[in-house]
């Protein structure tokens, strides 16, 4: 009994000091007042009133949710098929491993660098536009490529697809191949095997991947800022703006609301899929 407490203590301590305590501070500060230079301890509801009562917040949430849904759908589709190929089409384990490692190669550079490298590629005088112009496929540079929602979604998909691939691939590898043979023996077509055997058994992987993607996109601020050229807003960006203007209580209130929304989304995902069942 005592030993088990001791064993759990380091993690509990770390989570307590570095996760729970800061969140508590966040909650407390979200009720503080502020002016242009300082935070004034107190208990006011104005921060929440300003967050929830402003049309900007709602529009920004809507925009962030829109990004989340689009990115989630694309990464799920791409992630599922990449994993499917790795798990069921590739036969040799060595090839599987090598191909999976290939998937992680982009992660050898930092997140920010992977994001910024899209800028010279997609720009008005960037590689893609120059190539298309020289090939005579377009007459004027395509403007929508950079500093647009397209660019933001593209970068998200590039950054986060692996977070979908890894858990789905993992669950697919655990699927008992005899189940698929049984399905074939019973006359199932390939799409029926995917729909009735593979997908249901991959649900925990899909759920975990979805949690990764949803939380990452909901909390992002730098991708939106860099690839939309400041044209688009996200909740994270709103919070970062408030922090830079020293409006900490407002930023805290915003963060608390964001946290609540993301927790609700995760709860919904877990409600649909019991991830513990198959892990």
């Amino acid at each position, binding site marked *: 009994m005592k030993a088990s407490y001791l064993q759990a203590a380091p993690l509990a301590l770390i989570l307590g000091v570095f996760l729970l305590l800061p969140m508590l501070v966040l909650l407390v500060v979200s009720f503080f007042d502020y002016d*242009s230079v300082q935070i004034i301890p107190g208990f006011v509801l104005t921060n929440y009133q300003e967050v929830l009562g402003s049309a900007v917040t709602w529009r920004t949430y809507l925009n962030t949710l829109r990004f989340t849904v689009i990115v989630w759908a694309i990464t799920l589709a791409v992630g599922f098929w990449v994993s499917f190929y790795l798990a069921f089409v590739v036969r040799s384990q060595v090839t599987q491993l090598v191909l999976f490692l290939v998937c992680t190669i982009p992660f050898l550079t930092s997140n920010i660098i992977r994001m910024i490298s899209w800028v010279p590629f997609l720009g008005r005088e960037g590689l893609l536009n120059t190539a298309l112009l020289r090939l005579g496929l377009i007459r004027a540079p395509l403007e929508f490529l950079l500093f647009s929602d397209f660019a933001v979604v593209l970068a998200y998909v590039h950054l986060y697809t692996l977070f979908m691939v890894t858990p789905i691939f993992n669950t697919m590898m655990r699927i008992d191949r005899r189940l698929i043979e049984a399905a074939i023996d019973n006359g199932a077509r390939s799409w029926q095997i995917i729909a009735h055997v593979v997908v249901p058994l991959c649900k925990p992987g899909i759920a975990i991947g979805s949690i990764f993607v949803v939380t990452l996109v909901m909390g992002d601020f730098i991708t939106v800022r860099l690839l939309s050229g400041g044209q688009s807003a996200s909740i994270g960006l709103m919070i970062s703006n408030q922090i830079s203007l020293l*409006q900490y209580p407002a930023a805290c209130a915003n963060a608390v609301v964001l946290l609540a929304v993301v927790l609700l989304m995760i709860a919904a995902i877990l409600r649909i899929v019991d991830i513990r069942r198959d892990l």
Partner: protein
Amino acid sequence: MPNAPIGRRRLLRTASLAGAGAITGFPTVWAQNIKNVTLRQFGTGVSNLNAIAEKVKQDLGFTLQMTALDTDAVTQKSVTQPKSYDVADIEYFIIKKVFPTGVLQPMDTKRIKLFDKIVPIFTTGKLTPTSQVAQGTAPSTVAFVDGKTSTKFAAHPTQWATLIPTIYNADTLGIRPDLVGKPIRNWKDLMDPAFKGKAAILNIPGIGIMDAAMVMESMGRIKYVDKGNMTKPEIDKTIAFLIEAKKAGQFRAFWKTFDESVNLMASGEVVIQSMWSPAVAAVRSKGIACTYQPLAEGYRAWAGGLGIAKHLSGIELDAAYEYINWYLSGWVGAYLNRQGYYSAVLETAKQFMSADEWGFWIEGKPAQADIKSPEGKVMEKAGSVRDGGSFAERMGHVSCWNSVMTEDRYMVQKWNEFIAA
């Protein structure tokens, strides 16, 4: 700098003289002790340069520790951690927020030897006796307080200064002369339909709104009572206009950092945008044409200075005064002038600059030889003339100063609406 050694000797002499005056009777003890003094300074990146700290060590003997932060972080640190610094390098519009909180001590102008030589923008507010004080937080309106312990700004010069000015400049729009295809003369050209999708504005609310105000006035859409201190209806109208332009696709991007503005311009994504002077130089150093275009309505100016923390006393306080006197004595001034900024006491800086440098940077004359940056990199080829011309032409056409509005919080809220729209 062929004349630097002479200047240094002269400085050392003045330094020791001032030291003797500061601690009555024990100049030798003072000279021993001052080597152990460390002054902690923080401020924005523009003037927190290692070269200055090295020169201080060399000329004055004590150590200057520098921390460079962004404008918002400077405001925050100055107010929330007043014990963490000795000397604050702060912008005048920020001092309007910071000084009333009592974290800095008023400085005795009698101890600033070159105080009378400081450009009058910072004392009377007028560059020449006939010029007008510009709108916004003009430095002269927040440069003095009533007395030694006061935190209330004085309307006229007193013996007690909030900051001693060190650096300032006049900002305008940057353009790509090769890509705009027509002469740019007014702030309203930023909204020219010809530049649809090729214009940018900076996304720092306090400064961005001023640029927007310059554009609005230039278009004849509004006449502000004071651009630097807008009323709520004026803010509403300005933001509504920005949102309209954004929805019409006028802007390619909104930038927040120095290098973002450089990249936008250098890559040709943007051909006209709000810009800072060193960013224009950075674009040019890539071999790309970029002009810091003077405009008919005038410039948006900013200024910074050095303040002393409240807790400073004794030998450290003496060292701080010593440092500020040294700052005005020419070497730093020349260093800043060579980067395209202006120094507070121009005549001392002149002694540290070549006649050609002085002619190019301050008098607006064509360069006789290549103009080099303080690091020795060629900035301008022989024969070129500074954009906007001479000191008097540039600083004489300031239309407004960076400022903090009374409706600051409301303005920031509305600005976020614009960005989210």
